[in-house]
């Protein structure tokens, strides 16, 4: 009687293409990257990224600009308070972060994570895998869980980049 209904999206803010343009306006091409980590690699990523909320689907693209590789673009899903937040993140070739974009938000409370100033805190950070909520990334009072869980999600992506994609492991071909 309580079987979950098919997934639907409540509030879309950005499409995939919009998010790609917003995070990498200087990109000429996005090449999808298949991520197939081993169990041991997943364990290492989890250990580096620290405590995580419930997570959903994750996808990655290698990004190319006029002068070559720019970095990686990710889409990811983490639970805010009770439902998934879809967001996108860019990691430059040198490992520094680009500010994330919120693609979909589905809850009544906590939507303040769309604030540009809050998201801008991630930009240029080079310690993405060890970001501390409240300390490195200040929370928004009233949206604490969404802030902390998104910060944890970014940590996961940065750890994944560090352990799987850095050093050209994700190069096409």
């Amino acid at each position, binding site marked *: 009687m309580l079987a*979950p*209904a098919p*997934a*639907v*999206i*409540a*509030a*879309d803010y950005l499409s*995939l293409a919009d998010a790609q343009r917003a995070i990498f306006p200087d990109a000429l*091409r996005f090449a*999808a*990257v*298949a*991520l*197939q*980590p*081993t169990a041991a*690699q*997943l364990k290492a990523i*989890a250990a580096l990224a*620290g*405590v*995580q*909320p*419930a*997570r*959903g*689907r*994750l*996808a990655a*693209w290698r990004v190319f600009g006029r002068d070559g590789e720019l970095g990686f673009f990710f*889409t990811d*899903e983490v639970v805010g*308070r*009770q*439902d*998934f937040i879809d967001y996108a993140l860019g990691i430059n070739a040198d490992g520094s972060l680009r500010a994330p974009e919120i693609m979909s938000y589905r*809850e*009544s*409370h906590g939507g*303040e994570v769309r*604030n*540009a*100033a*809050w998201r801008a*805190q991630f930009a240029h950070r080079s310690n993405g895998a060890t970001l501390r909520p*409240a300390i490195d*990334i*200040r*929370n928004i*009072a*009233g*949206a604490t869980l969404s802030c902390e869980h998104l910060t944890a999600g970014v940590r*996961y992506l940065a750890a*994944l980049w560090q352990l799987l*994609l850095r050093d050209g*492991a*994700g190069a*096409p*071909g």
Partner: protein
Amino acid sequence: MTDFPRKQLISQRCLLVVALGLAVINTSIPVHAATATGLEARVATLESELQELKAQLAQMRASDAAAAKPAASAAAAANPAGAATADGASSALPPGATEARPALTWFGYGELNYTRPSEDPSAARADLGRFVIGTGYRFDERTRLESELEIEHAVSSAGDPGEVAIEQAYIEHELNGAARVRAGLFLIPSGLLNENHEPTRYYGVFRNIVETEIIPSTWREGGVGFQGNTTRGLRWDAGVTTGFNLSKWDPASSAGTQSPLGSIHQELALARAAQPSAYLAANYTGIPGLRLGASVFGGGASQRQPGMPGSRVLLWEGHARWQPGAWDLAALYARGHISGTAALNAALAAQLDDATLVPEDFYGAYLEAAWRGRVGRSWPLIPFARVERFNTGSGYAASGSGTPPPARADQTAYTAGVQLEFAPGVVFKTDYVDVSGGSAGDRFDLGLGYAF
């Protein structure tokens, strides 16, 4: 993740086959006539195009797979090679990842506490204060249900102190990306705590006094509300709801002196609704770590009941929270006013000697500081302190020719404690509360709270 049209997909596959063929031919023909540089450039160009086509094909395959089986399965499961490859679209799910997004979601929180009054240790109590289960359900891409069912004090029956209550039950509809409307029973956006009342989200075993006695958390009303956000950090709320009912005031009970509005709220239980109330609130969070906000709520409280003098309630507050680094600093001021109480108090005093009278004014304020330390690598250990000043009867209206009843004395409460979040969403708390004016109200508390 991209949805390609079928025809386009077929044509691009043909193109890929041609490109692969060209690549093979290119690598097998003699190269005597061409310069090494020219050939290298051509090979590089073809290689680049080939990689692009391969990536597109992989993306199309992934799209096909996703169409055949929504929510692609955990690719994380098995790749003996272990390295990231680049041949296709991607789906790396960590262990325990949720593949589908259910329309039905569950959440909950609870709090257990032990309190030992300093003045009377025999009055020590242990209690399962709250056990709450909440559900959310998405009906379509814009419409959702939010609900909370609460059991207080463990057992609810004729001979027990507990109660069962619906704290929230509303339908919310997204108007656009920046505004939404809700209808039903929902929390009033007043203060810092009312909308964020889970035990993991406030300091102290019990909720602070001001946001319990002056702002009657958990304060909810039935009605229609609008909410909007801007990407620059401004949130606004406005709505029309049910309000308070002064006929619930019990002159024989001290409940009114503990919380004037808490004793006359209706919680949408056959609520009298002859007089609507309205609220307006604004919160600014445009600077990370800062929250500034204010709200006002007003409406009729006599509900046009026969024999009830006309009366209105007004409650306003302002609040600030600043979280620089490990610090968490908060301040709040709230003031309430009930008009038309003179005639009502005269009637209550005539009914009962020593009747509890309805205050005309009441107020409260607090300052709070907490510091998020850590035990080991990940357990937040948070010492905090709070000072509150409040008065649930700071002014009474003069009744008829008589002088107004004397105001109650202001009270000050000092709370200091520490809490340890030993797992995400689970917190152990302890504190001591010292209330001015002797040892009455002083207490030692222990608590365990959770939220998921």
